[in-house]
């Protein structure tokens, strides 16, 4: 190990120590017998989960809402993203390109949860706010990916159509789009997968879905209900993971 390595290791250890000191975290107290007992009591209060048919129906509704938020949010983002990707790919000159990229960067760099908190002001509490929040952030991500795809696609088919007299719009639809559509669909599905997970938690700021149920039940100290929601979230994530792995395998082979 060189001296640089030792310096880096020392700096990391110092940073970690400083972090604990700054936060004034007393780990001893956090894990003291009394705190442990309290923690244990809290954990136990989550069991057994509430499986009354009433509540299960509500959780089912929340799950559907979560899936709907993610699907609509991603669909909107796909449409918006494609429209912003056209200028961002430099099709209409340098200035629109710069502006479009700036917009995309802005949309992308604000996390979904912050968007959700903002959208709750604009659209009120509920799933619509979550849908819009996902749509904005995902537009930023997907628009950039689409723009890159458009830039990397071979221009010859479009040029051939333009040279034989077709309009720019038709040349795009028949010369460019068929080449890029598989890629666009792949990106959208990939973002949808991520967004399902995101939609499940956006509710903690009031944007609908499973997260909102969880937030309510934890705030009202109804831990068994909270446990049911957490289990529903876990199942949702596992199912989505499995389905996407299975689909990918099928599509690749």
């Amino acid at each position: 190990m060189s001296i640089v390595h030792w310096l880096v290791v020392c700096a990391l250890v110092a940073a970690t120590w400083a972090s604990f000191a700054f936060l004034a975290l007393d780990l001893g107290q956090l894990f003291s017998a009394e705190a442990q007992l309290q923690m244990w009591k809290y954990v136990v209060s989550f069991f057994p989960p509430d499986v009354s048919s009433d509540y299960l129906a509500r959780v089912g509704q929340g799950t559907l809402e979560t899936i709907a938020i993610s699907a609509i949010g991603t669909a909107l983002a796909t449409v918006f993203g494609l429209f912003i990707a056209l200028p961002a790919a430099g099709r209409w000159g340098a200035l629109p390109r710069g502006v479009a990229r700036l917009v995309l960067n802005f949309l992308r760099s604000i996390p979904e949860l912050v968007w959700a908190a903002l959208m709750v002001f604009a659209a009120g509490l509920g799933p619509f706010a979550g849908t819009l929040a996902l749509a904005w952030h995902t537009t930023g991500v997907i628009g950039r990916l689409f723009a890159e795809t458009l830039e990397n696609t071979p221009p010859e088919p479009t040029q051939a159509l333009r040279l034989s007299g077709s309009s720019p719009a038709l040349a795009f639809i028949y010369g460019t789009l068929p080449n890029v559509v598989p890629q666009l669909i792949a990106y959208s599905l990939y973002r949808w997968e991520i967004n399902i997970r995101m939609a499940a938690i956006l509710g903690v700021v009031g944007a609908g879905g499973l997260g909102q149920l969880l937030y309510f039940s934890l705030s009202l100290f109804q831990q068994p209900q909270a446990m049911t929601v957490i289990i529903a979230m876990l199942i949702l994530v596992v199912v989505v993971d499995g389905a996407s792995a299975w689909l990918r395998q099928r599509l690749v082979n």
Partner: protein
Amino acid sequence: MTREALAIPVRDPAAVPRLLLALGIIILLWPGFKLTEFDPSVLFEERSLDTMARFVGTFFPLESSAEFLRLVARSTLETLAIATAGTALAMLIAWPLALVVTRTLSISRIGPGPGFALGRVARLPARFALMFFRSIPEIVWALIFVRAVGLGPAAGVLAIGVTYGGMLGKVYSEILESNDARPATALLEAGGGRIAAFCYGMWPMALPELVSYSVYRWECAIRASVIMGFVGAGGLGQQMELSMRMLNGGEVSTILLVFLLLVMLADGVSAFLRKVTA
């Protein structure tokens, strides 16, 4: 010669299937619009337009009073500290579990010894714990810990520690298993212990990958700790939530700007650390 004579189809032959496909997608999505209470007109109602206009109007100029900047600086440091302490805690959780679940470090696996079945069974709970820790999103852990240990950074540190402990543990063991197992196996077969085999047979080769993944997770932890603040786990997020609640746009935009700078800084630091250790 006319087009008809050449028998060139004037219409797009694929138009009908494409239209049908588009129609099918819209029909599939339709119930979603109902479920999400999709209604853009809400956005243009006078009341919400009014609130929004007043709120967005206050976004500029940025709030830059010395007092507020001091508050933001403190929250920024807190966010950094939560991410760093959380990642450290995550490593404490991840390493023992990773060493247990790594199959190439298993002594009982070598031969048909008495501990063969037992070793297999013992790995299962460790695997399950890792899966459980990382499958629950960090913000849900934060919600739970805020109620268990109270509002403040402690909940954030614990939430990052648990979630990222699960992720790091899984990835550490995957990295160790994907590396050449022969040195470690040789040490184990010559009678070395698990820890020794790890230290001398795996650590040197796997180190750059382990470091680079851990640094990447630290970077993610910064973003996560900002977000967890929204449920009361301290740091910049909590400050942002407060400012939003008070509809103080200037403060919100200052904090957003600081957040973006922080993410960029973390990006730079992590790139530097990866370069130094590579």
